[in-house]
Structures are given as structure tokens and as C-alpha cells.
């Protein structure tokens, strides 16, 4: 026979403590009184449902990652998509070219590109930018200006062609971009976004968001952003740049952080996503058909990170496939593809990275030099 619970020591101790006060005695015995099986099962299911609904309601109302339509509180994290949309709207009439990509392209300076190409660019690199973002942004540009841009520079990360990771929820949450690709988002991803309402991570972020809103000191901290965007869309790493100047920046730690994240990405990835490659081809062919020159390039990794990823994951295999596929897309659509995946392809400096994946201006300028060599004649000889 199994042991009786009355003999279970913690319960006996609680019984003893509860007997000390009348109220706790009443409460304890109320909680401890056996229920019939049916009311017990109903109680478990009802309480669980109620709690889950509360969690979902809190996450929806607070909306810490700006994934849902509620905007009661300021989002916990900065949302590059909505900020770039707002910045772009201020100057869309003068913008002739777009820089697309993930956060790895955010240091590509439109002013430096202007000197090279004589076109006014806007840096529309967004966090975790993937082909569906590029498609949405180009369509958004067309809707805003009535025509396609003259030039588009697309920095592709191998990780952005992941077949496992769903669309970034922040794309779905930005109505001006999402409306451009709404019919392309699989329903399963919409479901994923809704299921995130129950997530622990989001719940913790909602609590943090509430704290930031109601606790004075916390909100002061929030007011000091770590990064800002210039009017042309270029990112400024305020905190990290200050730490670098003071010699306090822990570069190794930053690389390790990327290493951990990318090992997980490439560990789960099984192949290049055909859906995302389809989006990419659609953007390139649309642009080229409208007389817009497209330049595709693969973004670079810091050599330390690169060697770790090559040793521990199938990164090299995916990268090789990505190069072949991007070259094929470029050939089919009369676009250009330039491989900038390693430092030696643009004579880069390993010290001019802010971490394992984000190059700083000296490196992005070298990349631009490689993409648009000084003599205009050489520009078309790269292919």
C-alpha cells in the first residue's frame, strides 16, 4: 500500500503552523479538505484556464515586443522596423536607393555610398532582416513614392535563409510593412505569434515593461537608449562605442554571445529555405524589371566566430549553398552578386567589428569600396 500523505512531514509541519492562528487554520483546512474527483478535475482545469487567460491578457495589453495591436505602454525593446519606417517617411521623396539587410548592414553609410554612386540611399537594415522583410520594404517604398528605387543593395546573412525560424513577429506587428506581404505569411506563423501570448519570456518582459512604466528609476534607465538611428537609418552604438573609447568593452564576451546564438541557429537549420529564396528572387526580379539595379552580397563574420561555427556546425555547408544560390539568382535576374563573407574578400580589419557579426564603419566602407569600385568603368566588371 502506498504511504498515507498524513505521514508526509512537510504537510504535518504545515498543519501544526496553521493551527496557531484562527484565520490560517480556517484557510489551511479549507485548502486541505478533500474534494470529490469531478469538482477536483473541474477546479484544476478552470484555475489553469483562468491563469493562462490572465497571462495572455497581460501580455497582449502590455505588448512588450510590439507584436500585437495594443499600444498602451512603450515597448520594452526598440523596434527597428517601426523606427525605420518613421525615419523613411520623413525623407522618402529624396531617397533613390535602399540598403536592405539585417542589423549587420546597419552601419552602411548612405553618405559614403552617395559619394560613390551619386545616389541618395536610405539604410533600411532591420533586426533579423530576412527576404520577407526585403520584399515588404521594397513594396512599401513603391507604395510611398509611386515608383521603384534606382538601386537596391541587399546584404544577405546565411542565417536569414533559415528554413526553421518563422517570420520575425515585429514584421507582422508593423502594419505598414505587414500589409505589403500579408498574403505571403503562412497561417502557421500567425498562430505562432498568438501562441507567444502564453510564453514565459514574454510574461517576464511584460512585468519588466510594467516596472519601467511605474517605477521612476527604471523608466529613467529606459530613457537612455543603448543605440539610436541617424536620420539616414545608420545605427549608432552609443553604449558600446563609449565603452570602446574607455577601453572597457568586452569584445570576447560579445563574440561569445553571437557564437551561442548562431550555434543554436545553425544547429537547428536543416537546409536553405526555399520559401525565403523565393521571396529574394521575387524582390530581385521585380526591381530589375523596373530598371532598378540590385546588388546582392553575403555579409561577413568575425574570423574567430567563423572558425567556431565551421568547426561545430554545418555553417560552411550552408554558406557554400547560399553562395551558389545567390549567384544563380543574380544571373537569372541580371543582378550582381558579390561575396563579402570573409575578411579577405574586402581586406577587412578584424578589430573593426562591434561583436562577431556587426562590422563598424571602417569595414563597411571597405565593403562599399568592393561593391562600388572608384572608377565607374570597373563597377560593372565585378560580376
Amino acid at each position, binding site marked *: 500500500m502506498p504511504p498515507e500523505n498524513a505521514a508526509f512531514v512537510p504537510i504535518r509541519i504545515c498543519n501544526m503552523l496553521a493551527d496557531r492562528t484562527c484565520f490560517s487554520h480556517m484557510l489551511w483546512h479549507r485548502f486541505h479538505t478533500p474534494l470529490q474527483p*469531478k469538482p477536483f478535475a473541474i477546479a484544476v482545469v478552470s484555475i489553469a484556464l483562468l491563469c493562462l487567460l490572465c497571462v495572455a491578457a497581460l501580455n497582449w495589453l502590455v505588448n512588450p515586443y510590439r507584436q500585437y495591436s495594443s499600444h498602451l505602454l512603450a515597448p520594452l525593446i526598440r523596434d527597428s522596423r517601426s523606427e525605420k519606417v518613421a525615419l523613411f517617411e520623413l525623407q522618402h521623396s529624396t531617397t533613390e536607393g535602399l540598403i536592405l539587410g539585417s542589423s549587420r548592414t546597419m552601419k552602411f553609410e548612405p553618405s559614403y555610398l552617395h559619394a560613390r554612386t551619386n545616389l541618395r540611399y536610405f539604410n533600411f537594415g532591420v533586426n533579423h532582416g530576412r527576404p520577407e522583410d526585403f520584399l515588404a520594404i521594397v513594396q512599401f517604398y513603391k507604395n510611398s513614392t509611386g515608383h521603384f528605387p534606382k538601386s537596391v543593395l541587399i546584404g544577405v546573412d546565411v542565417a536569414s535563409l533559415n528554413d526553421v525560424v518563422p517570420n520575425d513577429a515585429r514584421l507582422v506587428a508593423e502594419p505598414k510593412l505587414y500589409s505589403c506581404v500579408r498574403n505571403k505569411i503562412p497561417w502557421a506563423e500567425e498562430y505562432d505569434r498568438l501562441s507567444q501570448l502564453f*510564453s514565459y*519570456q514574454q510574461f517576464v518582459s511584460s512585468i519588466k515593461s510594467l516596472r519601467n512604466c511605474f517605477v521612476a528609476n527604471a523608466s529613467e534607465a529606459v530613457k537612455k537608449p543603448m543605440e539610436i538611428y541617424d536620420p539616414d537609418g545608420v545605427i549608432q552604438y552609443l553604449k558600446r562605442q563609449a565603452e570602446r573609447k574607455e577601453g572597457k568593452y568586452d569584445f570576447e564576451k560579445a563574440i561569445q554571445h553571437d557564437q551561442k546564438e548562431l550555434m543554436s541557429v545553425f544547429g537547428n537549420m536543416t537546409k536553405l529555405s526555399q520559401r525565403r529564396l523565393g521571396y529574394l528572387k521575387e524582390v530581385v526580379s521585380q526591381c530589375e524589371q523596373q530598371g532598378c539595379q540590385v546588388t546582392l552580397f553575403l555579409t561577413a563574420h568575425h574570423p574567430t566566430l567563423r572558425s567556431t561555427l565551421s568547426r561545430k556546425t554545418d555553417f560552411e555547408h550552408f554558406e557554400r549553398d547560399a553562395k551558389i544560390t545567390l549567384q544563380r539568382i543574380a544571373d537569372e535576374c541580371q543582378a550582381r552578386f558579390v561575396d563579402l563573407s570573409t575578411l579577405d574578400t574586402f581586406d577587412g580589419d578584424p578589430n573593426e567589428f562591434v561583436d562577431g557579426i556587426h562590422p563598424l564603419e571602417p569595414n563597411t566602407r571597405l565593403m562599399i569600396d568592393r561593391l562600388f569600385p572608384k572608377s565607374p568603368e570597373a563597377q560593372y566588371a565585378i560580376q
Partner: protein
Amino acid sequence: MLFNSYVFILLFLPLVLIAWWSLAHWPQVRLCFLVGSSYIFYGWWHWEFTLLLLASTLVDYYVGIGIHRSRTTYAKRWLLSLSLVSNLGMLAYFKYCGFFAESMNQLLDALRFGTVMNVPEIILPVGISFYTFQTLTYSIDLYRGQVKPARSFLHFAAYVSMFPQLIAGPIVRYSDVENQMQELGKSPDWNQQCHGLWFFVVGMSQKILIADSVAKVATPLLATPEALQFVTGWSALLAYTMQLYFDFAGYSNMAIGLGMMLGFSFPQNFDSPYQATSIQNFWRRWHMTLSSFLRDYLYIPLGGNRFGKLISYRNLIVVMFLGGFWHGAGWTFILWGLLHGCLLVLNGLYREHIGIVFPRPIAIAFTFLCVMLGWVLFRSTDLNMAMLWYRAILGLNGIERDLSFGTLATLGFGTTVFASLFCWFAPNTWNYRPKFSLGTAIVLSLVFVLCVMRFDAESPFLYFQF
């Protein structure tokens, strides 16, 4: 579909339970519904593999009828062979083909013939090792005359595909559910429902709150086995030992709980195995349905212990070798099986020739150590990794010099120790009788909600790979 996914918890399970209990008065419709929903559950990952499941079910159902109707032993044997060949053939193709080709290439390469075979890249259908064994037990039990054939194809299809135990066990024999399948017209037994909820939530918390937490310790350490040293090697080993137990025991408890919610009773699969006092005792407590399968369908037919000690020891090693190979197509699994076979033989020899009984804590600690050392082979992706790990725990890769409280915290020492204490001292889910009070309902609900909130870091069960 994973038990620990939103689609399962928030959509699939509620719909299935509501429909299942609404159809209580129509047993045939109910069975149809159970088979249909189980195929949806299985096909969620790769729908193509439901055809494989269907093929296996069809073959064994008709072979079963044939065995039952045959009058001669010859015909029965022939039909049983058909079942064995089809099930084991399927397993051999999907699970072992690549391994054999790779091993053959290595051998030929060593003999300087070069690589001659293409290693096929075959996707392993999830749960194939489990359901092929289940269908095999049905054919063998019919051949032995231990069970009657299933009442209808639907009955048999429901037994094979029942979603709670389809992917990773427990390995349910037809005789376990035969009678329960006859009583499908009954309405819910609320006591059983409550126990089902209890098992399910306990299993889920074992998986999500404990196994996944200790996995965060083990996985990063084992990603770089060459960097392991003495303390990190042991930390990874202890963490993995806990992860494997709580992951698999958690799955089993969830499966048993789901079975109860549908009105079925499945056999127990774990009985606090890390409290075992010997290796023999360990195999009576760890993955009990597999152990009893190996005993009844391999060890005893090989002769068991009826032909003297030497033959029984040989049988033990053969059975454990095959048990290891069942877990995975790799040399590490084969060695793991052989190691356990040898340990069982040593255990037998010790009992026979020395027989000194150690105090219980010492016996538990020693058994636990042996089991842990075996997990190194079980977890290693190849022999090289196993060697690196063994070297680390023996101190041959050096000992960390800068150990501090912070380092230990980074190694997740607290989490692992908590998990260890839990599996050594907490009562087994089967032995603990919860009192169904309001307090228990609140605690159970809150644990459930906490688990559901952790689904955002979706992690499959370790035994799905087998």
C-alpha cells in the same frame, strides 16, 4: 506533435478529450475518432510516415488473423516469420541502413579498398522502434496463444497508433489493453481522470522544469568535449544523467496520464531507477516495459537461465547488446549495451561467489556511478567524444584551477544537485497518492501554467531519436 507544444495543449488535447467523452455511447465511432486523431498527431511532423504506420498495422493485423486461424505449427511459424521480417526489415532499412553502409565503408577503407558504398540519408520515422516492437509483441503473443486476435481492424489500429504512447512508449502489449478495448462504451471515471491529470502535470514538470533546466547545463558543456576537464566533465555527466531520467520519465508519466484521461491504464515505465541497489535492480526499474520485452521475447527464448550459468551469462550479453543496438545505430550504443551486459554478468558472479550485501546507501551510490559511466557512451556522438569525456572525468585532461562559487553557479551546480536530490529522495509518482483537495488543485494548476509558459523554448524529448 510534441506533448510540450501549444498546439497540442491548447488545441489538440482539449478537442480530442471533448470528442472522445462525447462519443461514449458509440464505441465504433469512438475508435475511428481515436485512430484518426492519432494519425493526425503522428502525421503532424511528416504525414508520409503515417503510411508506414498503416502498412505495419495492416500486415500485423492480417498476419495475426492468419496465425489464429492456422491449424499447423508450420503455417503459424511461416506467418510469424512474415511479421518478424516486415517489422524488423522496416526497422533495419530506416534505422540501420546508413550505419551498416558507413561501417562497411570504414572497414573497406581500413583494408585499403577505399569507400565503395554510398551512405543513404534516410529520415528516421519518429517512434518506429516503439510501434514495430508493439506490433511484434502482438504477433508473437498470438503465436504463443497468449492473446486472442483483435476484435476488428479498428481495435488493432487504435492499439498500435494510440497517440499517448505512440512515439516513445511505454511499450504496451496487446494483452495490457485487450480488456480495456472491450469496455469502450463506459462514461468517464472521474477518479481516473484526476489521476490522469496528476500524472500528466507531474510528467510535464519533470520534463520542462527539471530536464530542460539541467539540459542547459549539459548541452553547452558537451558541445565542446575537447574542452572538458575534471569538474566540467563530472558536471556534464551528472547533468546529463538527470536530464535523461527526467526527460524520459517525464514523457512516460505524461503518456500514462493521457492514457488515463482517455480511460486506459498503461503499465509503469520507471520506478525510481537511480535508487537501484544493483545493476540487475536498475534494469527492473529503468524503462521497465523495454526490459520486460527483452526478457520475454529475447532472453527467455534464447534459453534464459535454464541451461546453466554460462549460457545465461551469454544470453544476458546478447540481450543487452541488442538492447543497446535498439537504442541507436552507432558503435557507442553497441558498447553501452555490451557494458551493461558485462555489468549484469559481474553482478551475477558477485552474488554467486561473494554475496556480501553492502549497506543500501553504498549499494545505491555504486550502482549510480556505474550507470553514470555508461551514460557517457550513450550520450557521445562517436567513440572519440566518449574517449575525451572519459579522459576528462578521470582527470587526464587536467583539473580546473580557478574554481569559485561563481564558476560552480555557471556550471549549474545548484540545479543539478536539486535534480539529484529529487530523484534520490522524492517518492515515485506511482507510489505517491495525492489528496485531491482545493490546495492540490491550485498547486497542480499553477505548475501546469508555469510549464505551458515554458513551451516557448520548445525542446523535443530525448527518446524521440530512438
